[in-house]
């Protein structure tokens, strides 16, 4: 026993372990910082550890070669023992890391921890966010499948919009003029060497600052931070209410860590790994590329912006956001910390969460994208065909064959790029429909050159019949209205009243 004790003392003397402990894990923190709201930082770090361990495991099998990466992904998923699970852990670990990091950032923002004297802690945290998103994007490319291929195409197309340097930046990103093996090698180096190295260095810096400037005390509403007095006040809090982080304040972090680990494990086990989808080649032209979850909202922004704003927002947005995040601790350096007295901060967070949440949802549903297979696969309800004349039925068939359904749903079935045609007869008159089909407009292509006059007539004859029972068909407001029919079986009459449109095709 004595020998053991001596041995321990020897190591302590040579390695200064006690001192190291006191200065790091055992450093004093305000007692009230042992809060459930303060667990997200350590939980993010835990995710990083999961990513490093699983990432090293994946690198044991994965071959970062343009010709072989895709095959090794399938090998990992299907043949390598537990390969699918390691892939799933790495994928879900990444999702958890981004989410928990966002929660950590939100908490730090709402609890005013970015204010004096922790400005650099906040800024280094923002840099960590950027690197983490960089890791998420480069990781998505290493899953070298069709989504990765087109994801690179989208990334390059965004970079190409940079004024003056666009072309050069694209070549720098792709490692050449075109997406090829060098592109993958480049992203492999970034994902496996450069970004992990940077993130570890920055995490070290971030934690060092946490030790230097202390954990933010749980803010009390009404207590103001003042540059002149804060250091002394914080010191007094530590004197009066300070406890060593280990073992007195770590319990909730430990519980949270356990929950996060179980969460990653459960998601990996239940939902499995993501992809790989089709092979990484441009020949995969029936691809419907979608980015990974952290970038889905940006994908949605790119669809919803008017084109004159697109370059400005896509390129300027991140720069402005970066400037704002770095400037934040200097804009509001002092004053109230508690979110209970900072309504604008609370509203900002709610707005951002709603915006990103809704955009992400839109990204997954992509109502702006044509449904590429609707013209062959979308069914048409009985009520939209029953009782039609042969000419109208010919129109219905044209609507299908001419691929109108890729953009237009009927009764909710089909693409959602354009308006649902299920009730178009109640909204537009025959001449209006003919004009719209022939000339297009309002984001619809013109079909005048692709349809014969008789095809247009058939289409219009069918479309004016599309309105719900009891809803009268649209009528020309310059023509006096006919008195409404007394019985409710009016649609049939209405159909008869619409003469086959006389469309002049110039």
């Amino acid at each position, binding site marked *: 026993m004595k020998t053991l004790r001596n041995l321990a003392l020897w190591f302590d003397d040579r390695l200064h372990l006690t001192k190291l402990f006191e200065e790091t894990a055992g450093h004093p923190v305000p007692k009230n910082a042992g809060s459930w709201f303060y667990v997200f930082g350590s939980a993010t770090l835990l995710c990083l550890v999961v990513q490093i361990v699983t990432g090293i495991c994946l690198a044991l099998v994965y071959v970062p070669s343009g010709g072989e990466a895709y095959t090794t992904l399938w090998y990992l998923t299907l043949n390598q023992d537990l390969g699918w699970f390691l892939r799933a852990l790495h994928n879900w670990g990444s999702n958890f890391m981004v989410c928990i990091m966002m929660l950590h950032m939100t908490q730090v923002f709402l609890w005013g921890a970015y204010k004096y004297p922790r400005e650099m802690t906040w800024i280094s945290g923002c840099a960590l966010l950027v690197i983490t998103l960089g890791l998420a994007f480069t990781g998505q490319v290493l899953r070298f499948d069709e989504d990765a*291929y087109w994801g690179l195409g989208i990334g390059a197309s965004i970079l190409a919009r*940079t004024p003056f340097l666009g072309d050069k930046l*694209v070549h720098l990103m792709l*490692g050449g003029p075109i997406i*090829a*093996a060098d592109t993958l090698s480049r992203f492999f180096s970034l994902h496996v060497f450069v970004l992990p190295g940077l993130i570890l260095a920055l995490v070290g810096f971030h934690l060092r600052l946490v030790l230097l400037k202390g954990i933010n005390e749980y803010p009390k509403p009404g207590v103001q931070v003042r540059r002149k007095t804060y250091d002394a006040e914080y010191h007094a809090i530590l004197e009066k209410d300070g406890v060593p982080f280990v073992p007195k304040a770590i319990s909730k972090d430990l519980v949270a860590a356990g929950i996060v680990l179980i969460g990653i494990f459960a998601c990996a086990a239940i939902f499995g790994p993501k992809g790989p989808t089709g092979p990484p080649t441009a020949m995969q032209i029936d691809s419907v*590329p979608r980015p990974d979850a952290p970038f889905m909202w940006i994908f949605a922004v790119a669809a919803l912006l008017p084109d004159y704003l697109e370059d400005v927002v896509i390129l300027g947005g991140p720069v402005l956001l970066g400037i704002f995040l770095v400037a934040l601790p200097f804009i509001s350096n002092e004053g109230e910390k508690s979110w209970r007295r900072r309504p604008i901060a609370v509203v900002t967070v709610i707005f951002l969460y709603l915006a990103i949440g809704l955009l992400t949802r839109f990204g997954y549903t992509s109502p702006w994208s044509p449904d590429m297979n609707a013209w062959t696969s979308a069914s048409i309800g009985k009520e939209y065909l029953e009782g039609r004349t042969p000419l109208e039925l010919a129109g219905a068939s044209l609507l299908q064959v001419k691929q109108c359904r890729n953009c237009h749903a009927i009764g909710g079935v089909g693409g959602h790029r354009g308006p649902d045609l299920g009730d178009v007869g109640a909204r537009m008159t025959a001449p209006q429909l003919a004009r719209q089909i022939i000339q297009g407009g309002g984001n619809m*292509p013109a079909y005048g050159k692709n349809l014969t006059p008789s095809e247009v007539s058939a289409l219009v004859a069918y479309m004016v019949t599309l309105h719900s029972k009891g809803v009268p068909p649209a009528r020309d407001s310059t023509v006096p209205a006919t008195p409404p029919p007394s019985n409710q079986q009016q649609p049939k009459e209405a159909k008869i009243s619409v003469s086959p449109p006389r469309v002049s095709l110039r």
Partner: protein
Amino acid sequence: MSEGKPPTQPEEGDKSSRRDFLLKLGVGLNIAAGAMVGIPVVGYVFSSFIKKPELQWIDLGKVNSFPEEETKLAKYKNPLHRPWDGETADIPCWVRRLKGESFQVFAINCAHLGCPVRWFSESKLFLCPCHGGVYYQDGSRAAGPPPRGLFEYETKVEGGQLWIKGGVLPTLANNP
């Protein structure tokens, strides 16, 4: 720089000036050596930044393999491909033969954000699956977010073969 500065002793004037000299020499030597090592590294990483890629003529196949008045998918090998490129070396493009030897060859990449556009022969439109860009059969923009029409390759017919000039990823900054 470091906390433990070497004690300068004013009485040993010549010794201190030798230390100063050595320090300056050391710093200078390292700047020079750093540049010697650093410049090639930067040049290596950024070589694609400096070098202007040259487009090359690529054979797309016999003219008669493309029916008149039709638009067909064709494929070519990236002219700069290497053995380890795998499937990424295969690049598709849409070939539209008008009449005789008049061709239009479009890049597969949407002018908006580069997704693969698909040809729909019945409606004679190219549709993009990402953000709903639409183009007419002649490549001009029909609807959606693209800021311009489809990217078009330079073409020529020589020896009964159709040739296009390609070799870069078509984007708004650089297109064939």
